């Protein structure tokens, strides 16, 4: 039982990074595919579409930060807390990056025909990014309360 609890703790440490990376892959792929489609339709300004497609990669960085913060000597006292923080922040990063990919794809689709809405069309993607930041910041705050 003790080994199981400690194993869960290790899963919790790596979960934010792994789940964030999975989500970023899906998100960047969605937005990237939309960007590739838009490249067929527009005459210039390709770089901005590819840049937008990279937005969902930030969740992987947030995942790395949370993982590095959670890393500590694993004991029976802190394993359950690490597991809970790691898994839940990881799921938040996973879902937000996939959804951010969809909002980025929609922004690319809207701004390819109407370039003047490019900035405002990114607002939904920025909002979704905000939720990832919340998940990361409060994971860091709560990680400070876990036994060392």
């Amino acid at each position, binding site marked *: 039982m003790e080994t199981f609890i400690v194993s869960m703790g290790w899963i919790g440490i790596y979960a934010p990074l792994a789940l964030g990376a999975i989500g970023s892959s899906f998100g960047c792929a*969605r937005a990237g595919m939309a960007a590739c*489609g838009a490249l*067929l339709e527009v005459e210039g300004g390709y770089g901005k579409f590819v840049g937008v497609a990279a937005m969902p990669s930030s969740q992987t960085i947030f995942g790395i930060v949370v993982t590095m913060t959670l890393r500590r000597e694993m004991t029976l006292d802190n394993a359950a807390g690490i597991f809970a923080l790691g898994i839940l922040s990881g799921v938040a990063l996973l879902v937000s990056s996939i959804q951010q990919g969809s909002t980025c*794809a929609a922004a690319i689709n809207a701004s390819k*025909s109407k370039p003047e809405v490019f900035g405002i069309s990114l607002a939904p993607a920025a909002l979704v990014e905000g939720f990832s930041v919340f998940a990361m910041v409060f994971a860091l705050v709560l990680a400070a309360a876990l036994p060392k």
Partner: protein
Amino acid sequence: MTGNYYTLVGSLPYLPHFEKAEWLPISRLKLEQRLKMLAPEDAEELARAETLAAWQMTLAKPKTDAAMVARYREAMETTRQPALRDYLEYRLGLQTLVAALRRRKAGLPEPARGELWGMGPWVETILAHWHEPDFHLTVIHRWLPEARKHLDDRNALALERLLMNVVWQWLSRIAESHPFGFEAVFAFVFKWDILRAWLARDPAAAKTWFQELIKEVIHGR
């Protein structure tokens, strides 16, 4: 279950409302090139649906009511995509309603039971309420009284505009529900078809479109 077509949807141009458009934003040739990104089974279903639900008469469209009904039933049995099935049902049901209005206005008798004359979910309701002005379907089809008025006024253009608008709105709704799915792709194709049919009725817009095509050919764009 529908797949996602991020690249394909991203490669399609913005389609303005048919009444505001002055030219087709993409040629049929280019559209077909883009549609090659569809999965083979989706492409096949869309092509089959186009032969049934194209706005204008095409060579591929069945020529008799019985052939049309048979093709419709076959399409409803073989089409996997539920949204496309819904569209065919709606579009051809709408066509049936207009045919019933025209038939009644022409003073023809109501269709006999078992006669192959219409398609869609409202055939029985139409027959049951043949002598009511809007076949007891105004709650579902709010456009029916207006369509009847245009028929009475012999205003074919206004009727065409109304029907196009009703179908356009339906397609816009389905595209919004799945912005990067097969739904968005087939909605684009059928809206493009409506736009082409509308522009074909406007000589000035047709001329502008023709000039654009000439420019495209000359400059190799």
